[in-house]
């Protein structure tokens, strides 16, 4: 029912240890992890409010497909099928280097690993980059 889950802040590169307060599956608050070697039980204003973007009502909740200039909610199968077919078509027509993949400084190592693997092994291009410079 009530849990505190240790994690890492997802704002800047400092990597402060946080505790997420969870009640009945809802994120209540963020606390600093007191004994963490990086932040030693302290946080900045963004860290203290880390749960707020997660709980935002502006979050996307469903895959969206644009039809005639407007987005429509679709199932994962439909969204992924559309994406895969379009991508395959473009690769066939223009070659794999006509595709670019922007991985992210916000997602996990596992996900970055998988997405660059996707670009290199599935699409067949080294057009992989992210916003390290920005």
């Amino acid at each position: 029912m009530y849990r505190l889950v240790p994690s890492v802040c997802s704002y800047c590169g400092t990597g402060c240890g946080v505790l997420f307060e969870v009640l009945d599956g809802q994120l209540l608050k963020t606390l600093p992890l007191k004994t963490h070697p990086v932040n030693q039980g302290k946080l900045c204003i963004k860290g203290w409010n880390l749960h707020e973007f997660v709980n935002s009502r502006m979050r996307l909740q469903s895959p969206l497909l644009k039809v005639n200039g407007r987005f429509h909610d679709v199932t994962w199968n439909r969204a992924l099928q559309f994406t895969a077919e379009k991508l395959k078509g473009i690769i066939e027509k223009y070659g794999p280097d006509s595709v670019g993949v922007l991985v992210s400084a916000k997602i996990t190592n596992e996900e970055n690993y998988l997405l660059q693997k996707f670009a290199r092994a599935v699409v067949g291009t080294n057009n992989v980059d992210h916003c390290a410079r920005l």
Partner: protein
Amino acid sequence: MKDKVRDWLETGKVDLFLGYKQVDGHPLPHAFSKENLAELGELIVSPARYALEKLATEILAIKPALKIGILGRDCNQRAVNVLTVHQQISPGQIQILEVNCCPSPLRKHAACSTLQPQTYGAVKLELGVDNNMSVAQMDQFDQESLYSRWMYEFQKCLKCYGCRDICPVCFCKECSLENNDLVATGGLPPEVPLFHLIRAVHMAGRCVDCGLCEEACPVDIPLRLLYRKVNGIVKDLFGYETGGSHEQPPFSLLGESTPPEAEPHSKAV
């Protein structure tokens, strides 16, 4: 301790018990319940303190029917008293299983916990305020020195609001620190010394001297000392000991029946 918590949970004295357990070498707050009695073997007393009564109050705000036990020191008990005085919780909603205490002038226990006083750099002692100082020691500085020392400390502030966010007795829905007419937003440091003095004023008759604010401060501002000073004034003037009882604080006169601000004297000019 474990037997007592087991008993509390089994007999229904509490529905939930907030204590600590070790996770990957870190003592973390953990909720024990009747459903996971087997976990009680892992219950520990933590040298790292979390405001368990604040966590309990947050849970109770959503689930008012619960009864919650917490592992607590004397400061937790004082905080529970203040929360009760200010009607954030009802008497008995939070039960405390007492453990040893850290040093505070407000403490009842003679024994201290494992907490060690922190050491601070020589430059801080020269320019700022030593967090380990007592109010009496601080009062020995002359006015000019006191002023410049506290200004130095406040100028370090990174405006994380951690002092407020971690505070077990900060529960106001509208916080004066967020009143744009009082404190300007958008810059660092926050207005010196307004931000800290506004908070200090609001801690009078409220602060339970747990010291969590100071532990949460990224730049080691001696907040505990500041609030001890204001609470000392409250004690001297009104004879009120914060958190010592369920007695209303002197400031509860203000509010709905008495306007918090003085009447304007426009005619007298």
